[in-house]
């Protein structure tokens, strides 16, 4: 199945060279998708533990704290690295 990925917030620049869609086997779950994304990132591009995760428009936690969940074909996974500039 295909999952759309949006990298935004503090880490928006990495989206320039990363695919906006990844292919996962049927039955894959959120952590499988996050693992696949992680494999695409170099050491200095790693997303912070506080990075927010949204699946299909709903927030499900942070990289450090979330529950694994099923994904379905076409889901959009949004990764929002926190920003706090004033």
């Amino acid at each position, binding site marked *: 199945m295909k999952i759309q990925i949006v990298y*935004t917030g*503090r880490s928006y620049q990495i989206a320039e060279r990363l695919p906006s869609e990844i292919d996962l086997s049927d039955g894959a779950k959120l952590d499988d998708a996050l693992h696949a994304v992680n494999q695409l990132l170099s050491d200095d591009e790693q997303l912070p533990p506080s990075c927010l995760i*949204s699946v299909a428009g709903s927030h*499900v936690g942070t990289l450090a704290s979330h529950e694994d969940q099923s994904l379905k074909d076409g889901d959009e996974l949004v990764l929002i690295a926190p920003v706090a500039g004033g």
Partner: protein
Amino acid sequence: MRAISLSPEELERYDRQIGPGVLSVDGQERLKNASVLITRVGGMGGPAALNLTMAGVGRVIIAHGGKMISPDLNRQVLGSESVLGKPRAPDFGEYLRTMNRFVEVEVIGHEPDDADAAALAARCDLIISCPPTFEERLRLNRAAVQAGIPFIDAAQWGITGTLIVVKPGETACLKCLYPEPPPFEEFFPVIGAISSATGSLAALEAIKILSGSGKPLWGQMLTYDGYQGNVAKVKLSRRESCACCAGV
């Protein structure tokens, strides 16, 4: 028929924002009777305070410590080169007063600590949070949740901005999202245009909430990634064990 508390001069001033699709007269009166705390009033809080002042929020309270330095002037719309090296809050307050004589502008020349934040929240109807650290943001969030008033968090980095709109007791609060504060980055990059855009959107949400017009972004995070040209809207989930809003 109920008397209108807006003077003819005020009705003339707000003529372009009263009518179908914008504010009702009642909504404009609600703005007049409202108090909003904005802290800080730099890149995002400045435009937020300016827009709320121009829109006619009755009392605009700004809080910001420190002196103006040159690198701030790429985004601080309330300032000018004449403020360089001076405490910025008094000048910012004076500028706001020149924009709308019908609005009371209160200036606090430092960032609120826990006690200040709680006392200010108790006499405000809404808080807009624009500081550079999550500690300050979480402090303001806590004060708003304890006072039961809406809280709008605006943040930026580079060419991206985010907005979170909290209704205490009903939606996720900032602490639900970040149980531990993410690290502080003092010298973050930023382009002033994203600061102004994000601050203006924060003001717009405040105007909608206070006036009763439109649909506020309750419980959502709006992200505008100006670099990619992407907009994302995420429905936020409350954390049952949230140290700030659980049980509220």
